[in-house]
């Protein structure tokens, strides 16, 4: 232990009342020295005390250890070396910082500064390190001194760098975001914006910084915004926070545009700020408007077409009425007149003349049936009865009774027919036409007509099988077409409308109908109705 240090520490001790008190407690200078040396050595910070000339007067244990770690083998660990000169003439990677330290210490010594602080990197081959060096001055009884405290701040520095890196990354992400990001303080002053915000509003970041956010809004919102914020600060009530809203923004050039805004509140370092995400939705709005326009146009078109269809439907209804009345009336006249001719001139018309009148009468009946058929067909799509639950089994039994089949034809219900929802008249028409066809075209002495029904996945399949004349496969489609018959009308008085009606009824219920048949062996008509 040298005297210089003892002196210095003695002088140091003078500086504090506290220490003065201590001193009296400790008793003698040797005791005081051990006391302060003990304190210094317990510190992790590397400490050295320089004279005003920069000469190292003393160092603590941490400094000593640091020197050993860094390969200094001087048994005095630099004591009596001139630290200023060391710094001034340093070579190598940290020489610039060393020179800066030299200037700093010099400034402190020359009382230009009360203290000096520098953080600098000092990376070893194996790890990255940073150090902080601090120089401060104190005056002794006779001399001034400089304390250099030096410590490894790598951990703090790494954390800082990490934070900076995260912030930079975040910034980079925010800057490439398509949405504008704006951070304002509690009073509406803009603290930060990203690139997209500049593009959306046409301002540079510099123009917006510390401006009130309201300059991005048009009047009247602009004038009300301060009040909104004030109210929010007071009550916590807001229409915007944490809600996606469509609002109007105003660009630097004064133009307005629709934008989507999402504001949220963030507490940063005990300070409340608001972050806003803004998106220019001009294009979306235009698309929506265009879509609306298309939709309206489409609706107009549909309405137009519908009214056209309604008109056409009305025309068809009128047409059916015309047929029902205007065609039937003259037909009735022809029928009556031929009857009266045959009656009133019985004596004057010979047998062949009477036969002609009979033929005329027959044709008027056929014409009447055709007209009835057209009427029935056209009425099918118009008047709809109420949908009721219909017991098809009972309905078919009634239909058969009504048709009153001749004794050589046997009609069997092979399965129980289901109860379904439908219109009674139409369902009766359906079965009546199919069964009466089977009866009409029965050419066998023992006629058999079988009716059954099986349940499929979601529909019923009905089958009507006869052993009658049968139909050639090439006519399978034709028989369902209106006014198509396969036999001369003089043999069978048939309107050619029955199967067309049947098909239309089945299809109205969403079912299908088809026929399987072999000429001479009979036909099988199948149709489906949904369950």
């Amino acid at each position: 232990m040298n005297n210089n240090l003892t002196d210095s520490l003695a002088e140091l001790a003078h500086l504090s009342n506290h220490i003065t008190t201590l001193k009296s407690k400790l008793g003698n200078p040797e005791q005081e020295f051990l006391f302060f040396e003990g304190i210094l050595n317990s510190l992790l910070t590397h400490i050295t005390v320089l004279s005003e000339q920069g000469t190292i007067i003393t160092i603590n244990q941490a400094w000593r250890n640091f020197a050993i770690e860094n390969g200094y083998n001087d048994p005095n660990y630099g004591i009596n070396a001139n630290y200023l000169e060391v710094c001034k003439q340093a070579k190598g990677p940290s020489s610039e910082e060393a020179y800066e330290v030299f200037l700093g210490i010099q400034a402190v010594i020359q009382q230009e500064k009360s203290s000096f602080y520098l953080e600098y990197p000092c990376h070893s081959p194996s790890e990255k390190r940073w150090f902080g060096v601090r120089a401060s001055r104190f005056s002794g009884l006779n001399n001034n001194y400089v304390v250099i405290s030096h410590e490894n701040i790598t951990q703090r520095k790494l954390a800082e760098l990490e934070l900076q890196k995260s912030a930079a990354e975040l910034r980079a992400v925010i800057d490439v975001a398509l949405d504008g990001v704006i951070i304002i303080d509690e009073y509406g002053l803009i603290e930060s914006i990203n690139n997209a915000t500049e593009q959306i509003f046409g301002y540079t970041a510099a123009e917006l910084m510390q401006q009130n956010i309201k300059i991005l809004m048009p009047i009247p919102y602009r004038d009300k915004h301060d009040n909104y914020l004030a109210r929010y600060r007071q009550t916590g009530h807001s229409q915007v926070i944490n809600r996606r809203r469509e609002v109007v923004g105003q660009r630097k050039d004064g133009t307005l545009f629709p934008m989507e805004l999402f504001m949220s509140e963030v507490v940063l370092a005990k300070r409340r700020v608001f972050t806003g995400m803004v998106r220019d939705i001009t294009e979306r709005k235009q698309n929506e408007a265009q879509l609306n326009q298309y939709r309206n146009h489409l609706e107009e078109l549909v309405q137009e077409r519908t009214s056209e269809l309604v008109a056409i439907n009305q025309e068809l209804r009128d047409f059916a009425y015309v047929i029902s009345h205007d065609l039937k009336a003259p037909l009735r006249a022809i029928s009556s007149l031929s009857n009266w001719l045959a009656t009133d001139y019985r004596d004057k018309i010979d047998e062949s003349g009477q036969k002609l009148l009979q033929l005329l009468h027959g044709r008027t009946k056929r014409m009447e049936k055709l007209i009835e058929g057209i009427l029935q067909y056209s009425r099918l799509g118009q008047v709809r009865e109420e949908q009721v639950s219909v017991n098809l089994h009972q309905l078919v039994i009634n239909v058969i009774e009504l048709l009153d089949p001749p004794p050589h034809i046997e009609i069997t219900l092979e399965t129980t027919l289901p109860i379904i929802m439908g219109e009674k008249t139409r369902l009766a028409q359906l079965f009546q036409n199919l069964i009466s066809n089977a009866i009409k075209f029965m050419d066998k002495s023992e006629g058999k007509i079988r009716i059954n029904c099986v349940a499929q996945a979601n529909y019923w399949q009905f089958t009507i099988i006869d052993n009658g004349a049968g139909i050639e496969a090439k006519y399978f489609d034709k028989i369902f077409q209106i006014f198509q018959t396969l036999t001369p009308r003089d043999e069978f008085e048939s309107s050619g409308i029955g199967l067309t009606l049947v098909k239309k009824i089945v299809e109205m219920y969403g079912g299908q109908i088809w026929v399987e048949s072999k000429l001479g062996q009979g036909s099988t008509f199948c149709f489906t109705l949904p369950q």
Partner: protein
Amino acid sequence: MKEEKSILLIEDDAIDIMAVKRAVKELNISNPLKTVGNGEEALIYLRDVQHDMPGIILLDLNMPRMNGIEFLQIAKNDNSLKRIPVIVLTTSQEQQDKVQSFNFSVAGYMTKPIDYLKFVEIIHTIHLYWTISELPE
């Protein structure tokens, strides 16, 4: 039908008029048969004090100037006419025509058959029914 009362036929078709006349004659119905061509003529006839009130009206629906339904609308709201029984005799089998006719309390609704002989049967039935039925004085 009551002996003294006339039958008023409101009909525009000449052959249908002939058919009614023929049927009435064939059935030996003695009531006088008066004929008018449409609803307007019928109202003029019925409101003419010189004419006796008919015992029954046979009404066609489809006629020029004033059709059968329009005639019913007026006649059935006329206190002096509304009790005369009206039988609609028409070609129309339209549900709407039937509903409208019965809304005006017609006494019957017959569709004219194509076959004249069936037409005679219809007139015969009407005659029988109205011979039995009582009418207010």
